[in-house]
């Protein structure tokens, strides 16, 4: 059914993954294919060993059929993530990470295991970052009270994001209690 989520939480996990699958990633095809004229856009042409930008769902589909390797996005390296984790722990604001980093990393772990170096390290770093952020959101939300119209600003830099699903869960929890 196209509308399985109930109304108390606006988006189900599957729907969030659906949204995340539209993010672009880089792939290295190992075959040749003509351009694709899809409703969501035009992609290709694909030539062996030449990198191309495609949406994540397309990359995963090609990967499953063994037609390409996926290059992990640049924010998903051990050094970058360690930096982010440190900064996250030290500051009150949220750090720069793509909007759907949890869904993107999960999809890549499931389907592109061998394309990610140090996968266990990366996975545990992302878990840690997630935990630190949850904690921040929780403490931030305790400040909000219903009588006051309060705009909670989530980050200082102009393009910072965090996991929306977790945020909605916590918002619902805190505002109901």
């Amino acid at each position, binding site marked *: *059914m*196209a*509308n399985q*989520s109930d*109304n108390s939480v*606006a*988006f189900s996990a599957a*729907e969030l993954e*659906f*949204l995340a*699958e*539209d993010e672009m990633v880089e792939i290295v095809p190992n075959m040749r*294919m*003509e351009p*694709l*004229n*899809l*409703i*969501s*856009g*035009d992609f290709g042409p694909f030539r062996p060993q030449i990198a191309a930008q495609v949406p994540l*769902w*397309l990359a995963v*589909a*090609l990967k499953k*059929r063994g*037609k390409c390797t996926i290059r992990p996005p640049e924010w998903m390296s051990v050094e970058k993530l360690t930096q982010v984790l440190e900064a996250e722990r030290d500051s009150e604001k949220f750090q720069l990470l793509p909007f759907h980093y949890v869904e993107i990393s999960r999809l890549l772990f499931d389907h592109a295991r061998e394309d990610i170096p140090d996968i266990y390290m990366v996975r545990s770093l992302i878990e840690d970052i997630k935990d630190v952020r949850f904690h921040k959101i929780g403490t931030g939300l305790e400040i*909000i009270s219903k009588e*006051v*119209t*309060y*705009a*909670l*600003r*989530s*980050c200082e830099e*102009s*393009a*910072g*994001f*965090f996991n*929306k699903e977790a*945020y*909605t869960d916590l*918002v619902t929890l805190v*505002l109901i209690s």
Partner: protein
Amino acid sequence: MDSGDASGYSAGVDDDYESLLSTTDAELLKRAWRNEKAAPEILQHETALVQRSREQIQLMEETVEEFSKNGVDPLTLSLYQMDLDRTLFLLRSYLRTRLQKIENYAFHIQKNTDLWNRLSKQEQKFAERCIDDTEQHLDQSVLSKLPHGFKSHLKQSSLSLADDMVPEPQLDQYVICRSKKFLGSFQLDDSGEEPVNIEANDLYALPYKSIKPLVESGQIDLV
């Protein structure tokens, strides 16, 4: 094949002409779907967008059929099919979310002309049938058997001043939103709170009521 640039889009955002041009129908549909899912009340029906999306989907379905007859390689075929399925899902989910809101708040929508005008023709017919059926059901099963002052399905008793049996959407529910441009100082509500600066691309958690006009004019996206 940038089919469907946003030429039918009516918001007066002339200074963002370029970014509008680069918004494909697929993006617009995704945006409309997200807004509809996150908003507590029903939003304006995007008739032109739905119509265009349907046409594109139909075109794509015919293309896929042709491909499968001509024996195009199955990988390409399955990729086209996947894209088609994703777009179909978006469209269906958009319409279904709206229907769910109509079902929940049917009486309220009927009373409020502004909300009624946000529905498409078919949705209005659906809403009317919904209302008739619910009225009839409540009447036959319970209301006709209650004592005289309590028979209305709109009021709790004949002493109520307002229609208090009609559920209304919670407009001060908090929503998470993001604006594409810098909107400057914005007054959140009338309780004398200082205005808040809304920057581009930052996420905000605000009560829906405060940003209602901005959502309607397309300046803010719900997430």
